[in-house]
């Protein structure tokens, strides 16, 4: 069973993704690697079954991911169907046209995606190295304050500013409609109190400790929303240990 991984990125938006797999191609590559299969000769029946079994076991929280995975499942089944059909021997006057292997397009996509993963891994290494260098962080400069910046914005006009504001207004409409929609009847309030009580006993709690005991998807979602709400209200904050990636939840007062 894949674990659900939650992370809070820099902007404080919350991502619920499936651990390890960043998409259906990632999962496929994993299955191929695990089975030690030649990427150019994928046993499509076997892989499709494994892929579907995986989907079956998943409890999706992120519906968008689900859609992408389902699309891939459909593609796999289509290829499988084409593979199982007796190959039509296309005999035309222009010699026998080799019918293309139905797996070919997928193989190409997988190879391309594999390169993406390689580059992403290298970027991650660089990111890690780079995080060891600290730069001066803005701060006030007593002897520099006199100089009012002449060109502080670059080529931005008043019109850009208004446009930014209008775009923001537009983006807010759907968000407002969603507001207060999810699982309210399930009492996020109770969960919030529960988390607060938990933290009253210990100043810091591991994310996994808080969520480990939950059995239903609904309970996880409710707890998660409660957590987000507490963060938003600045009652708690979370931090992620760089080395282990475990999320620690702590009382806001602990943050100084």
């Amino acid at each position, binding site marked *: 069973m894949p674990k659900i991984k939650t992370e809070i990125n*820099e*902007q*404080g*938006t919350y991502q619920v993704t499936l651990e390890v797999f960043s998409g259906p191609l990632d999962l496929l590559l994993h299955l191929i690697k695990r089975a030690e299969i030649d990427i150019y000769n994928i046993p499509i029946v076997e892989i499709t079954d494994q892929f579907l079994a995986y989907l079956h076991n998943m409890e999706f929280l992120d519906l968008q991911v689900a859609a992408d995975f389902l699309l891939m499942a459909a593609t796999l089944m289509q290829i499988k169907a084409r593979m199982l059909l007796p190959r039509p021997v296309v005999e035309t006057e222009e010699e026998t046209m080799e019918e293309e292997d139905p797996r070919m397009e997928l193989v190409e996509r997988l190879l391309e995606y594999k390169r993406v993963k390689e580059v992403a891994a290298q970027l991650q290494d660089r990111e890690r190295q780079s995080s060891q260098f*600290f*730069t*001066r*962080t*803005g*701060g006030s*400069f*007593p*002897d*520099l304050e*006199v*100089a*009012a*910046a*002449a*060109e*502080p*914005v*670059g*080529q*931005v*006009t*008043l019109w*850009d*500013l*208004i446009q*930014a*504001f*209008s*775009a*923001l*207004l537009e983006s*807010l*409409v759907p*968000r*407002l409609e969603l*507001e207060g929609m999810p699982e309210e009847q399930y009492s996020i309030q109770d969960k919030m109190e529960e988390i607060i009580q938990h933290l009253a006993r210990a100043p810091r709690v591991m994310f996994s400790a808080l969520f480990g005991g939950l059995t239903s998807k609904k309970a996880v979602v409710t707890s998660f929303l409660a957590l987000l709400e507490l963060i*938003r*209200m*600045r009652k708690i904050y979370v931090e992620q240990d760089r080395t282990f990636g475990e999320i620690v939840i702590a009382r806001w007062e602990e943050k100084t």
Partner: protein
Amino acid sequence: MNWREAKAVLEALIFASSEPVTVKEMSMITVLNEETIASLLADLAQEYNDQQRGIQIKEIAGGYQFVTKPELAVYLEKLKKVPRQVPLSQAALETLAIIAYKQPITRAEIETIRGVRVDSSLSTLLERGLIEETGRKEGPGRPILYGTTKGFLKYFGLNSLDELPIVDDWIINQQIQIDLTAD
């Protein structure tokens, strides 16, 4: 950790901090006692002064900070005038728009409207002199309030904030309302 290494650590700490670093803080981080820290700092400060460098260590607001030498200000002002060709990011622009229309406003309120954290946008805007801290809001935590600067008006060719075009912003008002009642 020897003397030279300890000095390097203090140098790096003072350099990277956005605010003056206190002796106490340096003592906690290095696990050296405060007397040792004080001697190390004196040594480091001396070094910067003797070597006719462009920067120096200064004691400000109970802590230590690097500042540029005052006699070099003439060059540093030129630095500000060199066109940097770094246009504001969309994120910074949105934050600026909110501040322009909703000032005075707190960081939390901006974040409610934008739905993301705005620390980096705020520091960019502060650094470029487009916004400034205008006071503190009454209430728990007394959060900092932000507003636009004269530089902002000048840059956008406005005589006053009244000249900002009117935008129907009931949605943002509503959003702030939701946030306030939730607290």
